[in-house]
């Protein structure tokens, strides 16, 4: 994906989503819609931030970015669903957790961190390789020399 073309639309879209989540968030009942809308905001930023040489590697998008977004969205939907379903009553527990909290622990907390972190560590060369960094430094040194003239 060519992020040079996409970053403008992503910045505008995420800004609209910031405003939308603010207005929706004024009503407590909309919290779960806001949670779902927060996923593309974070996804948009991470897509721009992790692009390499202006391009988001397809493989890096398919893992870890996409699974991270899916895990989070499912986690928020599950947390909301079970919180409503078992409101005011003692629920059946999953590994000792309230099912709603279980979704948060497995998806949002551990799922989020380990999906993103494992992908980042194992595929770091697609984020930036030693050659990318060396090339960058050479280009900057050349341009800085021209600027200083």
């Amino acid at each position, binding site marked *: 994906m060519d992020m040079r073309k996409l*970053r403008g639309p992503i910045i505008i879209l995420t800004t609209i989503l910031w405003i939308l989540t603010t207005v929706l968030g004024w009503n407590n009942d909309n*919290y779960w819609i806001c949670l779902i809308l927060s996923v593309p905001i974070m996804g948009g930023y991470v897509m721009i931030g992790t692009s390499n040489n202006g391009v988001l590697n397809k493989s890096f998008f398919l893992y870890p970015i996409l699974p991270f977004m899916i895990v989070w969205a499912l986690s928020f939907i599950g947390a*909301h669903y079970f919180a409503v379903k078992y409101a005011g009553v003692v629920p059946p*527990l999953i590994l000792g957790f309230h099912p709603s*909290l279980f979704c948060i622990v497995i998806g949002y907390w551990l799922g989020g961190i380990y999906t*993103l972190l494992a992908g980042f560590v194992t595929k770091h060369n697609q984020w*930036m390789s*030693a050659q990318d960094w060396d090339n*960058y430094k050479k280009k*900057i040194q050349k341009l800085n020399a021209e600027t200083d003239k």
Partner: protein
Amino acid sequence: MGKYAILAASLLMIVASFAIGYWGKKKADTAQAYFGATGIFGPFATGLSTLGGIVSAFALVGVNGLVYNTGTGMGLWMLTAVSGPFGLMCLAKKVRAVQEIAPLSSLGDVTDVIYNNSRIIKGVMSGILALGCLAYLTSQISAGINLFTYLLNWPPLLSGLLIFGILAVYMTFSGEVGGVMTQVFQGVIMVIACIALIISFFVITGGFGGVIEAVSKVSSVTSSDGSITKEFTPDMLNAFGTAAKASCFAWIFIPIVGSIGQPQSVTRMYAIKDPLDIPKTALWFGVTHVIVGFASVVIGYGCLYLVATGRMEPLAAYDSAIFAWGEYAGPFVQLCVYIAVLAASMSSASIYLSVSATALSRDLPHALGMNLTDKKQLRISKISMLVIGVVAVFFTLYAKEGVAILGTFGWGTLMTATMPTVMLGMFWPKASRRGVEIGEVTALVLNILSLSVIKWPGSLPWYYNVFAITMLVSVACSLIFPDAKGANRFEKQLEIARDL
């Protein structure tokens, strides 16, 4: 015995921090090193120092108190270990790349490169950063003082000067270099203490199942003198507890996305020596944050369990939850509680002291047109660091109203200073100097007006509104007032840095 062990361990930690900070003096030999620790540290140090900066005393004292009060809700804030990897993936290589374009010592230097030395952006951003960091600094000092006064009955001024006076002295010697080195030490202490707290939770409660079983069995518990009643509902242990749901949304989203805009994480992005180590930095931060965050949350659940089963009286003050837990769990766990809270308050205080001192003594004067030599800047900043550190102790103790006002600023305030400037500038070539200037002025005005004049609707934290408007204004005004081509002498370099 317990009290003296805690005192000895605390004094040992303060003395060790001083020694490490003083040792860092050797490395703080240039303005870049002193102000920014630029390009000096490896992944372990940057990861742990980011943890030390981000996990404040509130994270260990306030969060579990609120979990005790309303259930999971506020705990969501501490389950955001992904914030570090997210922020580092998004922004670290780009910020580090700017260091190759021009030497960086502060966040103001980063915006100088991106926005062609805009004095408005540098000045307003420094002002907001100073407000937010002083707010955090006073709250760390307050927590540290309460810790010693509660346990040892020491006069507050003595406790304050002992902990934070010494901290100000070693920060004066070694600046950000000493800051990073001591935060690593304090971060390690915090992680070890938190592992002990987690084990104590499982030993005492038997796990989350035990907690929910206990909380479900009773509807309320009243203290023996009848003055305090704690009410229980199974909903406390669902994902959101009984807190306002819109606040829960913000407590999930803001800590993560805001990690791109916190000075304690952005400054560490240019402290990294080799940018190829950034993924390892994320690993160190992520894993250690999981431990500290989990410890903070489970202590709140643990106190719910103890009160529901009648083993502890209902708490008179929510933020005493972690101390009550330590008292119940025995001398060793109590020692871990005090050490962890002291480490959290010292590590956060040092980063907030250095960022506010740099903003006030270096970036703000520069924005006002005062160009000083490196040598003079260093001298002024060293004096400022010491003065701000000591004055902050007196301010915390004797200007309670001022501290309360400052306490309103925090994470969200810092986001409004840094995200629209650094993140937007590095993500989007169309972020214009004029657009971001208008955005930053809007942020400053709205941050101040939100103290008393503006009452935002709903239960979203006020800063959420301020941040969303700041982003909208920055983006819209950048489109309306674009930069002229060639206006920034680093335009070509920035384009390559954005693509990196």
